[in-house]
């Protein structure tokens, strides 16, 4: 028998109150795990894609030019640069169907596009199918030329139609949104040279682009983490409240413990152990619920392939350790109150 068993018994004695206190932590932890997990998954996915797709440099129209497409002359100039090789062009443009804006994207590698049904060629996404009632075989007009829909992609969100890059380039009279290329020599030097030699274009290196993506995803993680932390803070406040009530209710009991020889440090330790235990239990259950939430969310958003990236070990361990430490800190004030109790007054407490 020791004070730690006493702390454990206190949690068991007030099952409902302990459960409600832990529930606050569970909700906070589960929210953090789901949100940060989704963000971590998305981050690793975006970074992997950025790494895989990116060439040494990407040349795009300069934002100051006001254009979102480079004309054929600019494209030729870029392609004629001796320090560049292994080009890949992407043309993205928009047109309207019945007054609704539709985006068209040129595809170089059809294998990267997941199809729900049909074949590659002219692929609409679900938003287009829903909006215009198109299906495989439907006729679609792009820049006044008629095409037949060959497939429907699994992509959701904005209205997109995917066509061959060559077709997209033809339809825009040789215009291109971005040119990816490998460089002979240092990518940074080459990108500077490109910007010097060709007007109204901007050249970014792979490392700059990756850093930009990383910065954006880190900021998103920080913001999401902050929002999720608010839920956890509410849980931690409930730990302070519960422990204060517990100390108040057990005033006489604490007085007895002091009278029979327990030191203030031992009393403090028992209160901190109790609050830490609440945090640990809430953290473990919250993480389990969070993992379940990640599975559900990944299935709903069709991100099942990224599930492993959504549950990085640092998140699981960090959240459990973090919430336990926070709960111990939440127990500090009640523990101080308990250790400061006057024995004589505590023994008289009703």
């Amino acid at each position: 028998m020791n004070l730690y068993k006493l702390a454990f018994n206190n949690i068991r004695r007030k099952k409902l109150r302990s459960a409600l206190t832990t529930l606050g932590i569970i909700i906070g932890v589960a929210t953090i795990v789901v949100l940060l997990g989704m963000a971590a998954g998305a981050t690793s996915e975006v970074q992997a894609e950025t790494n895989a797709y990116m060439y040494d440099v990407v040349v795009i129209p300069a934002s100051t030019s006001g254009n979102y497409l480079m004309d054929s002359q600019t494209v030729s100039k870029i392609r004629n640069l001796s320090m560049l090789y292994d080009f890949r062009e992407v043309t993205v443009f928009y047109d309207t169907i019945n007054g609704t804006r539709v985006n068209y994207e040129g595809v170089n590698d059809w294998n990267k596009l997941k199809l729900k049904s049909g074949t590659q060629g002219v692929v609409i996404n679900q938003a287009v199918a829903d909006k215009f009632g198109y299906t495989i075989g439907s006729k679609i007009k792009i820049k006044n030329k008629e095409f037949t829909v060959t497939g429907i992609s699994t992509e959701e969100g904005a209205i997109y139609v995917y066509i061959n890059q060559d077709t997209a380039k033809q339809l825009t009279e040789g215009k291109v949104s971005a040119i990816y290329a490998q460089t002979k020599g240092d990518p940074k030097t080459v990108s500077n040279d490109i910007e010097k030699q060709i007007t109204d274009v901007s050249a970014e290196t792979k490392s700059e682009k990756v850093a930009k993506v990383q910065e954006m995803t880190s900021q998103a993680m920080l913001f999401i983490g902050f929002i999720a932390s608010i839920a956890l803070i509410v849980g931690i406040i409930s730990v302070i409240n519960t422990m204060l009530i517990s100390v108040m209710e057990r005033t006489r009991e604490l007085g007895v413990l002091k009278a029979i020889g327990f030191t203030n440090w031992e009393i403090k330790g028992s209160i901190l152990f109790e609050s830490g235990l609440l945090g640990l239990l809430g953290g473990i259950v919250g993480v389990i619920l969070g993992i379940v939430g990640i599975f559900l969310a990944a299935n709903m958003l069709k991100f099942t392939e990224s599930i492993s990236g959504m549950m990085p070990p640092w998140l699981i361990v960090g959240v459990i350790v973090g919430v336990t430490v926070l709960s111990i800190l939440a127990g500090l004030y009640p523990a101080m109150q308990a250790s400061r109790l006057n024995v004589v007054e505590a023994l008289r407490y009703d």
Partner: protein
Amino acid sequence: MNSDVIVYEVKTVKNPYERMENVVEIEGLKKSYENGKIKALDGADLKIKKGEFVSIIGPSGSGKSTLLNMLGALDQPDEGKITVSGHDLTKTKDLNHFRSKEIGFIFQLHNLIPNLTVLENVEIPMYESRLSSKKMHERALKLLDYVELQEKASRKPTQLSGGERQRVAIARALANNPSIILADEPTGSLDSKTGQIILQRLKEIHEKEKVTLIMVTHDMNVASMAERTIEVLDGKIKT
């Protein structure tokens, strides 16, 4: 009470001459509350010999509980000298250790910890003695046997009668072989019949173990069971 059980693992009074030694020495003890408005003790002097059974009587607010709190190192005097079991309590720094080793408390309202079993309540003071769990367990069972409650060792205090709870409190007070037992109105919350049984048990412990027993009461009949009665009135001791 099971008189065959050896309660004290160390003898409190080894030989008759030891009974001549003072276990408590108090000189000019003063204690006031509310910035001196209430004088609980106003220059109290007292000597109690080792192995004595002393009752402290007095009306409510006379200072008898304050005196008991001072003897148990639960409170500190404003002035004066207090020596208990050779420890000058105004100078002793580790009062927790002193209380754990030297004092056994029996409170009016038993003050058992409700979410521990009877056995665990008796064990808890021994945690400070650093005994092994097995030895603590054995000693707690022996003490419960002494107060004839071994069969209720696994029950919670709420499942016991008032008299049984006070017997558990006695067992808990004896856990660390204290040299002094301080009992604050031990029969105050019990009916007269149960109260008599508890008093008999305390007296038997005192007679068998020769432990110093100091009992606060406002009941003259209860006080008369002691070898000596001390009256506290207006913060002063009349012997």
